[in-house]
């Protein structure tokens, strides 16, 4: 499997933070309408940091790896720092994605921001 980097394969095979938190502080989703993929992120905030986070993804390898990666990047970060995460950060952390899969990193970040926004509104 040369299409994906080792890091992407690792995240895909052993995804981190899979699940849905019950009674989260924030919950957000993003979808790629052109392919039907979607990711939902739930998270909890304590002391201004992302203290718990979980994702669900229906989608391809890149979608799952990106979501797993973004939860790992966000976990423990101050909310502002998590908010500042860019698709490029996900791509870098994954060691890149195939060019036609880069939109998956966008979806992961979109779901994270939606969850952070939800947490900000609620709290």
């Amino acid at each position, binding site marked *: *499997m040369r299409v994906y980097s080792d890091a992407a394969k690792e995240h*895909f*095979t052993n995804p981190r933070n899979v699940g849905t938190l019950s009674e989260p502080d924030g919950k957000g989703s993003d979808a*790629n309408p052109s392919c039907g*993929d979607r990711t939902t992120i739930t998270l909890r905030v304590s002391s201004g940091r992302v203290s718990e986070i979980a994702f*669900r993804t*229906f989608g391809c*390898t890149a979608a799952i790896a990106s979501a797993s990666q973004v939860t790992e990047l966000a976990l423990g970060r101050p909310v502002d720092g998590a908010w500042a995460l860019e698709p490029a950060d996900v791509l870098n952390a994954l060691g890149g994605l195939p060019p036609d899969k880069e*939109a998956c990193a966008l979806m992961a970040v979109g779901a994270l921001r939606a969850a952070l926004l939800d947490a900000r509104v609620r709290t």
Partner: protein
Amino acid sequence: MRAYFDHAATTPLDPEVADAMSRVLRDVYGNPSSIYSEGQTARALVDQAREDVARALGAAPNEIVFTSGGTEADNLALRGTLRARAAEGDGLVTTAIEHHAVLDTAHDLAHEGRARVTVVGVDKHGRVEPEAIERALDRRTVLVSVMHGNNEIGTLQPLARIGAIDREHGITFHSDAVQTVGALPLDVSRVPVDLVSVNAHKFYGPKGVGALYVRTGTRIATLQTGGGQEKGRRTGTENVAGIVGLGVALRIAAAKRAEESARQARLRDRLIEGVRGRIPGAVLTGHPSERLPNNASFCFPGTQGEALVVALDLAGFAVSSGSACTSGSTEPSHVLLALGLGREVAQGSLRLTLGRGTTEAEIDALLAALPPIVARLRAVSAVPV
């Protein structure tokens, strides 16, 4: 361990074919159009291959036109017929589950204003009703194109009945038999089909070479113009080594066919039963019995095809999915949608196609590896099954 379960995509070259081609590549370089000895040596090899292909199909040698593959054979059949019969009509009837080489060509002809295209649907097993074809015909119909065996779901079509209807109406009947030639008998002296697409790399021959059977008397124009090879029906210097490979591969396939297809069908049934027994919610796609002996195809709701392919690749299995998921957009397979499956179910498609090398041990290894992968992807997605 590494197991190849994608024989519908392509097959390894038969070693005998590889040897024959390597010999040609090394020793035979003449241009078959040249009349001196080197040329005639090459010509004799091309003629021999033409006889081999003709014999396997029950055809005459001059009814075989060599092409650069299945795609070109399909394009030649559709474009060549519509052009040659333009004065009689422009109606083209085909089905919703054809390969892109037929369906996209039909759409392109329609887009160019060269054909009025009618696409006939299929039942939930992917079968085309001959009566539905008949209803779609009108006085301007000149061509019907119905594939023999489907490349995704393996469903076989009742060619003889469809061909009989077409013949009655003087309509040219084309069948894309790319998936079946080699695996199932197709005898054009019995089945009333006028044009048949053949593709070497689906039966342990080389990539980039195929053939179109053209029944004597069938009107067809050429796609390419030039030096006039293949009696002007397909011009361009012949791919001599490839054509030799096609001939040898089809000869071998015809000899092995009966025994090998039965063997693969047994393994296929073991695979289908195993998957159904082990994976809740698994949907078998295609016809339960009228299907290619090597095709086991499924949808696993809650998973996405590309992810299944990658996970299985990482586990040592080469497989494929109907949903291509490239260039940022996953179009769920038009074949699966034509069966009436929902888009999301269709996205979780997995095609397992067996071949000569497939063993029972490989089937069992796949049956061990697949359920946890499906379970893991379902856990990640939590899409209710």
